[in-house]
């Protein structure tokens, strides 16, 4: 018997499988969602259970401007990938840089808020349950933004050096998928921390 099966040669099979990068990213997003779910549950469970101040309603102000920055970066990254798919490399680089700038602005906003909370309001991760859950949840999100920004910066460097071409659009799109996830999580975190939790 031959070692290799040539099992069917008569049938013409049309064979179209999904792109592995996308499937892998969807799986990673599912895992990350589960992690965030646990942190969100912990946050909601501990709302109002802190024994000492400061309390959320005294010190938290909804970061509307920075939220708009982050959410609009989803639009710019989408447009960037669309430009690349249409082989407009220049437009891609510009929109990609804009995404990076918007994301970095958001991160700077988080940093400023933390600075104010720590030095002006005296709220640290050790102060009370609110501090513990707030810095963990917002910090976990900021960590994901940082990872996303590192990825975006890497692609931007490659783009500026002229290595990113139309055929890479599918791969760049996988990174964009992750960025959309980071933005979507912020909608949840914002709602939980600045709307429900306050």
């Amino acid at each position, binding site marked *: 018997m031959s*070692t*290799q*099966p*040539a*099992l*069917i*040669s008569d*049938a013409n*099979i049309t*064979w179209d*499988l*999904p*792109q*592995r990068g996308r*499937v*892998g990213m969807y*799986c*990673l997003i*599912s*895992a*990350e*969602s*589960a*992690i*965030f*779910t*646990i*942190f969100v549950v*912990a946050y909601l*469970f*501990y709302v109002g*259970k*802190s*024994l000492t101040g400061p309390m959320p309603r005294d010190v938290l102000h909804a970061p509307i401007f920075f939220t708009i920055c982050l959410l609009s970066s989803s639009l710019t990254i989408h447009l960037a990938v669309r430009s690349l798919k249409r082989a407009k490399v220049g437009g891609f680089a510009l929109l990609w840089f804009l995404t990076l700038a918007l994301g970095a602005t958001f991160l700077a906003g988080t940093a400023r808020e933390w600075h104010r909370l720590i030095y002006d309001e005296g709220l640290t*991760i*050790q102060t*009370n*349950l609110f501090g*513990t*859950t707030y810095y*963990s949840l917002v910090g*976990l999100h900021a960590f994901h933004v940082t990872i996303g920004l590192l990825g975006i910066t890497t692609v931007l460097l490659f783009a500026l050096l002229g290595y990113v071409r139309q055929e890479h659009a599918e791969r760049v799109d996988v990174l964009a998928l992750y960025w959309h996830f980071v933005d979507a999580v912020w909608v949840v975190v914002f709602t939980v921390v600045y709307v429900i939790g306050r």
Partner: protein
Amino acid sequence: MATDAITTLRAETASLPFVVRLHEWVTTVDHKRLGIMYIVYALVFLMIGGVEAAIMRIQLIRPHNNFVSPEVFNQMFTMHGTTMIFFVIMPMLFGFANYLVPLMIGARDMAFPRLNAFSFWLTAFGGILLYFSFLGANGLYGNGTAPDVGWFAYAPLTSRTFSLGHSTDFWTLSLLISGFGSIGTAVNIIATIFCMRCPGMTLAKMPLLAWLNLVMAVLVILAISPLSAAQIMLAVDRYLGGHFFDTQAGGSAVIWMHFFWIFGHPEVYVLVIPAFAFVSEIVPVFSRKAIFGYPVMVAATVCIAFISMSVWAHHMFTVGMNANANTFFVLSTMAIAVPTGIKIFNWLATMWGGKIHFKTPMLFCIGFLFQFLIAGLTGIMLSAAPFTWHLGNSYFVVAHFHYVIVGAILFATFGAFYYWFPKMSGKMYNETLGKLHFWLFLIGFHLTFDFMHVPGLLGMPRRIYTYEPGRGWDTLNLIVTIGVFFQAAGILVFVANLLWSYFHGETVGSDPWDAWTLEWSTSSPPPAYNFAIIPEVRSRRPLWDLKHPEDPDWKYE
């Protein structure tokens, strides 16, 4: 011819110096080598975890024994549980999944080979980190060595106040790291199955092993992630002074239990579903029949996975929940018996009327069937909250879950070892030693775990260091410990068989079992590229179609 080239290649590889071969293994991204590394790694930890179990059993062999100190006893049960779950069974099953899934779906490797290697080394590092605690966890305070908080590490035992030194940190970080490795492997398995199947292999034509490992990988993603989140919280508490599980600052010890068991119960199915997968491949081949009720098997597995996400708090009946929560978790836990029962009947129906060959893999699968049934029955007993109020945290519970993990999962895994050993090594194992292993292990298993139920019913709590004489526990504990020696003898025979057969076994061809799935269509062991020509399939049993062109399966499916 292709085979000649492969033999030449193997002869060349064998003659390379040891350092070069070691370097090849350490830097490999080949799914087969990584699979074997997972399996060997798990076998090493199986020995270590087994020795820890034996130490506990020797301590409990008679009342007022002083074989080890109470502190060491606490470390032994913590390390035994953590090792067996995270560094034996999971890597073992990941190893088989890594090795078999690409071969069975006609692919040349996993979807992300480098992620695969990364995941393996994360898991390996996690295990080494856990055991480094014996040396390194003394910390600045000179307190503690290995983790001693139990494998589910309830708060507040894990707080800085009660766990000085670094033992709990080693536990947390090793599980966090190996957890990331597990998530990476799960992502890889899912992407492989969705994106790498050979032409013609629709989802409905995949071997059951691939299907069940797909479900397992989904469960890993949904179960290990909450554990990682909880471990991050624990690390925040211990390192940064957070208050997640700090009751003094308004935190909750119970929420740790919820987070842990949201991981912990699906984890049971992460472990048992690949065992189902082995049985679903082995039973048909040794009954000479196609699997009975393939679509129902898939549906039942998916159903088990769904329900398993909603049963976690049956581990917490004794903690005290309200009546509605108790009722919900009693009912959902009982409901899981339905799809599980369906699977047992399907395996029986596969054997029914078949021409059964009682080879070692089949013996282990038959052992699995009966022992898993009994494990399920005690599971239904424990699913009733009032029953658990009496027997929670007793040796009855210990006996129940060891029936699942040893009686079902380990037996099925031994079956898988013997079934795929010829494929992985190119050599046939020794059938006499295999049968000796089966009978020794079967006798040892039943001596240990059948008799372990009774002291539990008589009120013996788990994790107890020693006990008073005259409570009716003495003889039973003696029998339980005697069983351990039979099991250890069985394991030694098993390892001896593997080693002896690897070096001196009879060389086998590509298909020693006359089996039907694609891994048997390539040489044993398979070449690095698996298939010279990517196969195309039309049915669930492509090799049957090849061997019986006059009566192929695809006419009936």
